[in-house]
Structure formats: structure tokens, C-alpha cells
């Protein structure tokens, strides 16, 4: 009796597995075929960096090397509302592969990583949240090197729950 039941349960499980695997596999291939590359493994990559040097290293650099070839456009020096701070980053460096933004005092300091496809200008603008007044850094990867520029923003109302 027990044995019969076991066989039945086993068979049931196998059928269930098989049944589930079909659609799962299909979904997997579907997601891959659909546009956009998959989301990066987040905490493991550059977004897991907790210091500026870690972020530089995650982008393939070895040390914090400063550059003056970054302009901050309309990025404010004083932000009245930390929830919406427009940050513009542009660089005149040649051969730019990617640009990262590091907001020193935020709980997750790496805020964004912009890749720069051929033909796209190394110039981006997006709104960010700043929990408090902070140094912000642009990390520019160009011709295999990572160069860093700093800007300071004073926030009068915080971006975290404030």
C-alpha cells in the first residue's frame, strides 16, 4: 500500500517538475531574446562599492586619479530639495567608455553608471536624491583608465524621508 503511494507521489512529482520546467525554460529564452541586456548583478558589481576607491576599482581602475576635464553643467552648488537634484556630467576626454556617479554620503553611494556607446556624447543629465550635503564624484573610464572629478552640493532639505 505504502509502496504504491510512494510510486504515485514520485510520479506526480516528476510530472509536476516536467510540467513546470517547460514554461520556465521558455520564459528564460524569451527574456533573453527580448531587447535590453539583463540587469547587472547588483551588489557584486560597482553598486556594491562602499568607498570611492572601491567604485574606481569596480570600474577597472587602480587608484583615485583626478581629472579637470569634467564639467558639471547646471548641477547646483546648493540644492533646496535633496529629493530632486539635477546632476549633469559631461567630459571632453577622448575614448570614454562609461561614466559613474558616486554620491559620498548616500547609503548606496554609487548612484548610476552610464555606458557610452560609439556616437553617443559623454554627457548625461538625470535627477538624483541626496540624503544630505555631500561631495559627488564623476568616475570617467576612458582609454582603459578611470579618472575622477569632484563637485560639492549643499542640501538644505534632506532626500531621505525629510
Amino acid at each position, binding site marked *: 500500500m505504502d509502496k504504491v503511494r510512494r510510486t504515485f507521489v514520485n510520479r506526480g512529482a516528476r510530472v509536476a517538475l516536467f510540467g513546470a520546467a517547460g514554461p520556465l525554460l521558455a520564459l528564460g529564452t524569451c527574456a533573453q531574446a527580448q*531587447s*535590453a*541586456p*539583463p*540587469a*547587472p548583478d*547588483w551588489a557584486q*558589481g*560597482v*553598486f556594491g562599492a562602499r568607498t570611492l576607491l572601491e567604485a574606481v576599482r569596480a570600474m577597472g581602475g587602480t587608484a583615485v586619479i583626478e581629472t579637470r576635464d569634467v564639467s558639471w553643467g547646471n548641477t547646483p552648488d546648493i540644492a533646496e530639495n535633496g*529629493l*530632486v*537634484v*539635477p546632476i*549633469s556630467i559631461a567630459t571632453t576626454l577622448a575614448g570614454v567608455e562609461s561614466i559613474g556617479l558616486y*554620491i559620498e554620503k*548616500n*547609503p*548606496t553611494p*554609487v*548612484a*548610476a*553608471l*552610464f*555606458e557610452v*556607446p560609439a*556616437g*553617443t*556624447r559623454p*554627457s*548625461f*543629465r*538625470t*535627477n*538624483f*536624491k*541626496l*540624503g544630505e550635503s555631500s561631495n559627488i564624484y564623476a568616475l570617467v573610464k576612458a582609454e582603459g583608465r578611470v579618472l575622477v572629478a569632484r563637485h560639492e552640493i549643499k542640501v538644505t532639505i534632506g532626500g*531621505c*524621508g525629510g
Partner: protein
Amino acid sequence: MADPMRIRARIEGDQCVVRVLIGHEMETGQRRDATGRLVPAWFIQRVTATTGGRVVFSASWGPAVSKNPVIQFSYAGAKVGDRIQVTWVDTRGDRRTDEAVVSA
């Protein structure tokens, strides 16, 4: 389903300037609701834009991007009438793609 993006793509000089407005909560995972419970993180992690099969914008985001994000970028080699598609994917795996036509 998330709200449609607003996308404007205009030729200015030798560049096509693209401005995108996305409707998204962009929850950081740091905020507490009225009862003191943490609101789980929920934010856009990837944004890409393509035109004629060519990638012209590709970014990964953390939780620090503001609610209802705006993006501005520009690229060379666009013509009036080109179609540009913008796609985002968030931490829940939700995604949305919208399209705009490049204007003069």
C-alpha cells in the same frame, strides 16, 4: 502596467538631443511608511535606448535616482523621422518600452 514614458527627440546641430520622463516610484528601501515599516526597495535598474537596432543610451541605476526620473542624452548620426525606443527594467522585473520619432 506603468504609465507611458514621455520621450522627445530633437535634432540640434549635429546631435539628436533626447529627453525622457519616466513615471516610477523609485523606492530606495530606506523610507518608512506612516506605521514605521520600511518600504521595500523598488527602482529602475536598467535603461536603454536604441534606434534602428543601434544602442544609443545604456545606463544602470541605483536607488538614488529621483522619483519620476528624467534623462537627457544626445547622439550623432540621427535623421528626422528616425524612430527611437526607450526601455526600462525595474527590480521587480517589470519593464516598459516606448517609442518616439526624431523631429527637427
